[in-house]
């Protein structure tokens, strides 16, 4: 199963969300939907619409910047990062 690393701020926001989780999914979109089943609110926090990540959320799959359509392998490392933002 893919390993998913969450940012500290998201883990603090959603009850029970660990900093690292394992998940099986074919794409980033499917991965987020699966995670949302386990920890409701994940999808709302990461996705602006069903087709887009939020503008300041970056997802990397095996080191490459991903979109919701990016494939995920069983051995993938998925990192969810908060972009440089704020003031």
């Amino acid at each position, binding site marked *: 199963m893919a390993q998913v690393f969450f*940012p500290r*701020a*998201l883990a*603090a*926001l*959603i*009850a029970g969300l660990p900093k690292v989780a394992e998940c099986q999914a074919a794409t980033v979109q499917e991965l987020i939907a699966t995670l949302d089943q386990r920890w*409701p*609110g994940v999808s*709302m*926090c*990461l996705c*602006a*619409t*069903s087709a*887009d990540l*939020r503008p*300041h*959320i970056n997802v990397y799959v095996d080191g490459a910047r991903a979109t919701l359509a990016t494939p995920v392998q069983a051995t993938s490392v998925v990192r969810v990062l*908060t*972009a440089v*933002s*704020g003031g």
Partner: protein
Amino acid sequence: MSRVLLLVGTKKGAFVLEDDGSRTNWHLRGPFCDTWPIYHMMFDDATQTLYASGGNPWFGPGVWRSDDLGNTWSHSNAGLTYGEGGPPITTMWHLTAAHGALYAGADPAGLFRSMDQGQTWTHVEGLRAHPSRPSWNPGGGGLCLHSIVAHPTDPARLWVAISAVGTFASDDAGETWTTRNQGVRAEFQPERYPEYGQCVHKLLLAADGEQLYQQNHCGVYRSADAGASWEEITTGLPSDFGFPLALHPRDPNTLYVVPLNGADKGRFVPDGRMAVWRSTNRGDDWAPLTEGLPAQDAYLGVLREGMAVDTLDPAGIYVGTSTGQVFGSADEGASWQQLCTNLPPIWSVETALLEG
């Protein structure tokens, strides 16, 4: 003994200023809500619950809730969406509790209702179904629904106000809406008195449940007919521009505003002198309240949610500035003291009254 909590929403989190019963000694707690930008806070007397609304640049909109007067908070965004094909919501701007429901206003503008104390939300679709919606354009503060006014006794009656769009009313609990902008100027539109497109900055209902007041981008107004028509009451104020508005908790004829020098002049208090202006006759006459407020070199701004009253007698008036100062008056504005100096930019001030 009654104690006042000042609920202060800032660019970098929620804060609570807690009174010791004197309204002169205050203790600051916070920041709360994971230092999210907090646009509004409120206390629901019926459930003794604190709420805070905001939006985070990473995770989008959210409403925070505390059942222990701010010591611990939980967050929810469940249902805060316009659904497939709708625009993403960035921020929850304003909260109002009434008749067992909790309402929240969003940016881009829309109305949400929660019947489970903010755990889940349902879009009140009638407002965005209004035929004017394709023409709604954001102002400088965004396309925010910043005022939600519930009638005190009739749950079916609601008013909302949207920046750069105007005021709407519903008589059927939000199913259908009509514009309520007749008599309100819109100097930045090709037509001076359009049906909608006015930039209302704050809308409130007086203690009698009948008279509406609004501070607008273009003046201050009153309405005695539920917003069907508006009468301008700007004469006597130093400017027609300002953001906040506060109403006396018992006297429907007394209101407070903080005029700023002008939309295109820096948007701070005129001449660097801080003043809250009060009318005791529905806006026929105005007088500045300045005792204890900075009298020179004070280029302060106050945003639309930045003024509140408590319900004690005499009423307390509180003002938070966009540069982090909180001023308070325990005598209905006759004299003021600075309660807090170095907060982040203040976006909202509300009060809660605790008994015992």
